[in-house]
């Protein structure tokens, strides 16, 4: 695809009658690229209300495709559907969110269309003069940042990290066209047998405005009860480093970092976490980080606004008690 390609197509996601927050972020990014129509693909028979939500958040057009196999977690079906919609929309830029769906379907669509893809982008920009598309992404576990420029071939496929862009304010008066697409039936070669959910109760880690996380320095699973207590006092969620999840102290769904969850709380309190680059990759968007660690040279203090050096067993109990007094008074 060359020449005629214009605009931006976002591969949207929705569930329970709502658009994923990340899809709104992609639409805002799409508008900022200012290269023509911004459209969104919504797989799996999206109801009209979801389509309209996408329009209110910046979509000029919505492609919906209702083949029963799409939009339900079968990557084979989703790859085929997005590639077909792409054939109709002919976008210059094809955006995905860095989700289980986007991280797999995005590159596979790119391979199928014979173009390159960039994973885990924190910025997607059009260069001033040439209009060429350039992305910025962390590499080497977040130790370095790379800027990569797409060649002329279209579409340019970028998988964008959550919370890297702010969604636009919803505007119910915006107009957009809904285009129903007929799909060739996909060949699905994997069969889902069972899904086992381990959603923890309370605030979701990704949405929490306060996160309290523990690392290997806690020495075992039981100190996490104190972190739960602290998170409870602050209306926050508990998270952990990979070392904790690998050791089986907590389920992997608690992991924060490059290969775990990306969090953007106002306040991030860490206890016994060294601050390896791969951990920081998931929490660099925290507004304020507070670290308790016995090693004054530990990397976590380079990212923290407030720190306390010492054994958590000496510091944490009075810290929690004082916070209790403060929030309950």
């Amino acid at each position, binding site marked *: 695809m060359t020449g005629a390609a214009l605009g931006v197509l976002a591969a949207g996601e929705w569930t329970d009658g709502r658009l994923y927050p990340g899809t709104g972020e992609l639409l805002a990014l799409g508008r900022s690229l200012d290269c023509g129509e911004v459209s969104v693909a919504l797989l799996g028979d999206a109801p009209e209300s979801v389509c309209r939500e996408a329009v209110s958040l910046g979509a000029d057009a919505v492609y919906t495709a209702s083949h029963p196999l799409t939009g339900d977690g079968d*990557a*084979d079906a989703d790859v085929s559907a997005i590639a077909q919609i792409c054939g109709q929309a002919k976008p210059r830029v094809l955006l995905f969110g860095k989700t*289980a769906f986007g991280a*797999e379907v995005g*590159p*596979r669509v790119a*391979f199928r269309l014979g173009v*390159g*893809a960039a994973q885990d982008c924190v910025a997607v920009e059009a260069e001033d003069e040439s209009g060429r598309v350039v992305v910025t992404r*962390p*590499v*080497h*576990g977040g*130790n*370095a*940042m*790379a*800027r*990569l*420029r*797409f*060649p002329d071939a279209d579409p340019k496929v970028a998988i964008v990290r959550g919370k890297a862009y702010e969604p636009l304010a919803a505007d119910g008066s915006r107009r957009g066209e809904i285009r129903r697409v007929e799909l060739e039936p996909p060949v699905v*070669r*994997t*069969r*889902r*047998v*069972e899904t086992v*959910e*381990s959603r923890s109760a309370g605030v979701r880690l990704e949405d929490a405005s306060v996160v309290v996380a523990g690392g290997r320095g806690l020495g075992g699973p039981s100190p996490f009860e104190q972190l739960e207590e602290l998170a409870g006092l*602050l209306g926050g969620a508990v998270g952990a480093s990979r070392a904790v999840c*690998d050791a089986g102290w907590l389920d*992997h*769904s608690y992991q924060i970092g490059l*290969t775990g*969850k990306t969090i953007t709380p106002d*306040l991030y309190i860490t206890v016994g976490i060294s601050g*390896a*680059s791969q951990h920081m990759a998931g929490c660099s968007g925290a507004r*304020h980080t*507070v*670290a308790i660690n016995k090693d004054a040279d530990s*990397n976590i*203090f*380079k*990212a*923290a*606004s*407030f*720190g*306390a050096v010492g*054994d958590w067993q*000496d*510091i944490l*109990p*009075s810290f*929690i008690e*004082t*916070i209790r007094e*403060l929030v309950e008074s």
Partner: protein
Amino acid sequence: MALNIVVCAKQVVDPETPVSAFRIDADARRVVPAPGVPPVVNGFDENAVEAALRIKDGTDAAIAVVSVGSGFAMDVMKKPLSMGADQLVLVDDEAVADLDAAATAYVLSRAIERLGGYDLVLCGRQASDWDNAQVPLGIAETLGLPCVTMAQKVEAHNGGLVVERVLDEGYQVVEADMPALVTVSNELGEPRYPSLRGIMAASRKSPTVWTASDLDLDPARLAPSLELVDLFIPVTDRQCEMVEGEDGQDTGRRLALRLREEKLI
């Protein structure tokens, strides 16, 4: 009949290199390995080797490990052999070093085809250098294989695969027919330590070494699909205010009060 398993494993800069020792050559746009820190087999690829070995523990299987690059550290790359893999194939050529994901996937696909019949291709979920998480997807698209990502458990019986794949919250059980490609995540569990016997056996084995010309590669497909324009170390200019007290208990109390002062709690 024995099950033929191919594991793709990459040699990478040690990702546990301390942040303070991490250097890049900005002009050449490459990472300069810290002196005295040897490369390692990408961690997730060791998980993939472990997944292959667990299958082999229960059934007749042969495991070939394939790597594409140049400047291999032989004692590093032999680790999968000492863990119990049967064969090591190195595509060792300047022409295939530092390729991007699409080109690497192409070269690996050619190498896998050249190995002959295979039932299962196992990869790591991502390589800890460029964190691309793309090469396995490219291999699956190139070879036309069913693809299951993020495995925490892989079982193979009667031509079929049963894979538990990690989700954000929980996991999913997926089946596929072989041949297929599966990417493995660290949730699979610790890779086994090489036994003394394994290390001895590995030291007697030499790798099969192929060059680019052995694979009859189309040069057009080695060209990068994205151009690296800049590589830099991000600067963090946070100043950390250290809160100190008379003892730990006092420090904890002061830290909480300080956060209140700043209206953070």
